[in-house]
């Protein structure tokens, strides 16, 4: 068995003790129950309190389990909740950009489209909710891989098809792209997934700054790009939308 870290073992013991019943416990109860010096127990409790795993009652000074512990087991954001929160903002983005809007989340080794707003031009379009997009070549995929470590490892493990001559498939090139994405806060795909199609996307964060999804627009490269670069006004609209949805999910200003 590998060597374990004593303070983590002790912290776990504190949590188990507090989880043992409805009651709140004082510092000396905890220290004596675990056979620890009061100072050691206090240090453990203070750290757990900072992390939100333990709360101290203001009046009695006794300790109980913290709310963060409950959230830990319940942490993933329901994708339908994400869509409900994003509905108004993604409509606005479609109007402002004149392009179709997509919201995607990581699913297995790709991007699952969970919301889609039609391009506002009255043309016949098909709802693409439920469709999958590749991680390595689309703007939403790159955004997820840039901020979500799970998506990043999926990207490296998944087969990476060269859809066009512009698709990056080798890790060094992909990593450089993700580095750029993290640096500027958004990702783009200029004819890397489909000939003639460009997309731009930005990350959606929840209140713990976890990347829960990506929002982006996709459309004809002639409309989205100017001299091979995504038009700055479109990037701004996409990032505004991502910020608004994140704010609605409780993420603080960033």
């Amino acid at each position, binding site marked *: 068995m590998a060597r374990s870290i004593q303070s983590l073992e002790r912290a776990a013991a504190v949590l188990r003790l507090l989880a043992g019943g409805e009651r709140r416990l004082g510092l000396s109860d905890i220290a004596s129950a675990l056979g620890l010096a009061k100072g050691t127990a206090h240090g453990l409790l203070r750290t757990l309190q900072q992390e939100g795993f333990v709360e101290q009652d203001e009046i009695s000074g006794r300790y109980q389990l913290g709310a963060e512990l409950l959230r830990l087991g319940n942490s993933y954001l329901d994708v339908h909740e994400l*869509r*409900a929160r994003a*509905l108004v903002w993604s*409509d606005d983005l479609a*109007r402002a950009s004149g392009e179709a809007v997509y919201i995607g989340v990581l699913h297995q080794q790709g991007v699952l489209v969970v919301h889609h707003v*039609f391009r506002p031009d009255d043309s016949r*379009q098909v709802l693409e909710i439920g469709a999958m997009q590749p991680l390595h070549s689309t703007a939403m995929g790159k955004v997820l891989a840039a901020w979500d470590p799970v998506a990043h490892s999926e990207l490296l493990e998944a087969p990476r098809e060269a859809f066009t001559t512009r698709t990056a498939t080798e890790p060094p090139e992909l990593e450089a792209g993700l580095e750029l994405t993290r640096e500027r806060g958004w990702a783009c795909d200029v004819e890397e997934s489909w000939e003639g199609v460009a997309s731009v996307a930005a990350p959606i964060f929840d209140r713990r700054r976890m990347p829960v999804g990506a929002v982006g627009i996709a459309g004809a490269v002639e409309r989205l790009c100017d001299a091979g670069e995504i038009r700055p006004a479109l990037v701004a609209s996409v990032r505004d939308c991502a910020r608004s949805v994140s704010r609605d999910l409780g993420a603080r200003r960033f």
Partner: protein
Amino acid sequence: MTENQSTDSTQRAFIAAIDQGTTSSRCIIFDKDGRTVGVDQKEHEQIFPKPGWVEHDAVEIWNNVQEVVDGAVRQAGISTDDVKAIGITNQRETTVLWDKNTGEPVHNALVWQDTRTDALCKELGRNVGQDRFRRETGLPLASYFAGPKIRWLLDNVEGLRERAARGEILFGTMDSWVIWNLTGGVDGGVHVTDVTNASRTMLMNLHELDWDERICASMDIPMEVLPEIKSSAEVYGTAASGALAGIPVASALGDQQAALFGQTCFATGEGKSTYGTGTFLLMNTGSEPINSYNGLLTTVGYRIGDQDPVYALEGSIAVTGSLVQWMRDQMGLISTAAEIETLASSVEDNGGTYFVPAFSGLFAPYWRPDARGVITGLTRYVTKAHLARAVLEATAWQTREIVDAMTKDSGVELTALKVDGGMTSNNLLMQNISDVLDTPVVRPMVSETTCLGAAYAAGLAVGFWPDTDALRANWRRAAEWTPRMDAAVRDREYKNWLKAVERTMGWIEEEN
């Protein structure tokens, strides 16, 4: 630069829409493309003096309306001259009587949900029953509508009948109250209502679009208190004060009719459904009122200036979004409303279960107060996910029943259903509705269809938009669901649903 300035000046033209709703008053400023440029909102107090009684303070509401108008104009960063017209939409049927010399309401407004006129409505039905005035008004005698509420106030506020006889008292639904105050109140305020609001009083003859003397006499309501009935889109007067002083007041529409207008349902057979706590479905049936023999309401959809009126059939579903809330709050099967879709999507079908949420009886098209909710088809196989699916399907099947009743009454097939409201974010539900209706379901890009409808009507009245075609051009499809269900499956499932509905009936035994 000059070119820029000229586009800029044409773009600095807006319409303000006031939405005087049941829980709050809002004002939204729209530009020519129907985009929101400013918005403000304020809630007002819900007053419950007794079980079943619901009142609003009309003075508080008028103060809030003034505040949100000023707030929205400020937020939009525009000046008074940039606003070309003011439109109004409102909670329907809510009734206020006030003194025309002081502007003081004589009593709190009686809200549409208030049931104090239940007994009065039974009495007014005499030996005929609740359909006594249906042929003239399109409505059954029910406590929602304004006429019996006026009668209650006249009977119960001391000295009111005498004051009314002396011509001192004015009646209005909230559109009339807001317009009268907005155009000057005691100082020259105009006392008007529009055809859609008037059609919810039970006092207007649907064919003549005028107050029905015989019904007013039957309800013992002096006609002097009634406002003049105008179209939904014409200049009634100009605002006398506030941030929009001098701007024409140019539209009024009941909220559901405003949503129909905002969804640009201008052709016969076009309908809209607003999915919230409950659901309101209205279908444009053209220029003649259609009697309903299937428990729907006949109502005026809108009337633009002196053009022919457009009528609508209306059906409402009492329990839709509130069933999802019930699953969350009472059953604890989900922690947020959106999770119902996650749970329902985890299974392929309903596992044979059907959930008829007849929590307070069955409404349109059955009208069976003796019914109560049932969940049928339970077996050991059924999980909470199947129930979640049955919950969503309940909303879809209830929509289907209303649509079928509309088709039966009017002979008009619904061509497409335009949807709005909170539940439109539920992808599975929208697909399911399309499947069971065998009709495309379309969500527009603007969620504020009610305010937009009022703005559209006001804009038409002052020439801001030339015609309804220009409004249609503004309409943008955000999503469309097309039917994917096999016809045989649809028929089998509908049959099962109807069987489940049968099981709800007769649960409550006759009293005595």
